[in-house]
């Protein structure tokens, strides 16, 4: 693994189903993030984690949950998917100094379609 990876690359999901998007980084960054990108809206932060064992809510957290059991992995779960969650999801990681957020490294994205 080099950098940050996401799985699956794309997924079509029936509404009401549960789905977990996976994200793994090998850069030993302490901070990780999940964004969604919708046409015309740019990137919006869903959840973040400053260090393993801690998580926080971003701008659009409703309908999503995350966990950070270790440094490398940061899965995003949709407990009961709805069509409005159709989007491209990006995971990112960075060093966090406790004061500022440094350069974020982004994964290739997961394209999710909820029908």
């Amino acid at each position, binding site marked *: 693994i080099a950098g940050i990876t996401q799985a699956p690359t794309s997924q079509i999901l029936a509404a009401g189903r549960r789905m977990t998007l996976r994200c793994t980084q090998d850069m030993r960054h302490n*901070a990780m*993030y999940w*964004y969604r990108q919708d046409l*015309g*809206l*740019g*990137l*919006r*932060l869903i959840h*973040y984690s*400053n260090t393993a064992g801690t998580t*926080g*809510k*971003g*701008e659009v957290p409703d309908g999503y949950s995350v966990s950070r059991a270790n440094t490398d992995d940061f899965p995003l779960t949709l407990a009961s998917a709805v069509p409005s969650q159709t989007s491209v999801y*990006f995971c*990112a990681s960075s060093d*966090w100094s406790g*004061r*500022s*957020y*440094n*350069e*974020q*490294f*982004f*994964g*290739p*994205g997961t394209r999710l379609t909820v029908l």
Partner: protein
Amino acid sequence: LAKTTQPISMDSYEGQEVNITCSHNNIATNDYITWYQQFPSQGPRFIIQGYKTKVTNEVASLFIPADRKSSTLSLPRVSLSDTAVYYCLVSYTGTASKLTFGTGTRLQVML
């Protein structure tokens, strides 16, 4: 949640300098401004970061005026491969919950 504002799109020709401005209200003194580049079907990629005056690296310059209410990304002598969407991100000190990307500027470079 303070918002950032960028022009939706810009056109340029190869070899020209391109300046993209981002407006950001309520920014605090120690908050950082970061610019990213995104190609279709890829994640954003870091270009440059700064928090006051001017920062320059091998690909771009970032100008931040004294009042810090805006910032300008300058790309010298663009080429076709610079055609992409450029995002301004304001990193509010201390909490990621307020990481705010702008809506992005679509730069089209032409021959």
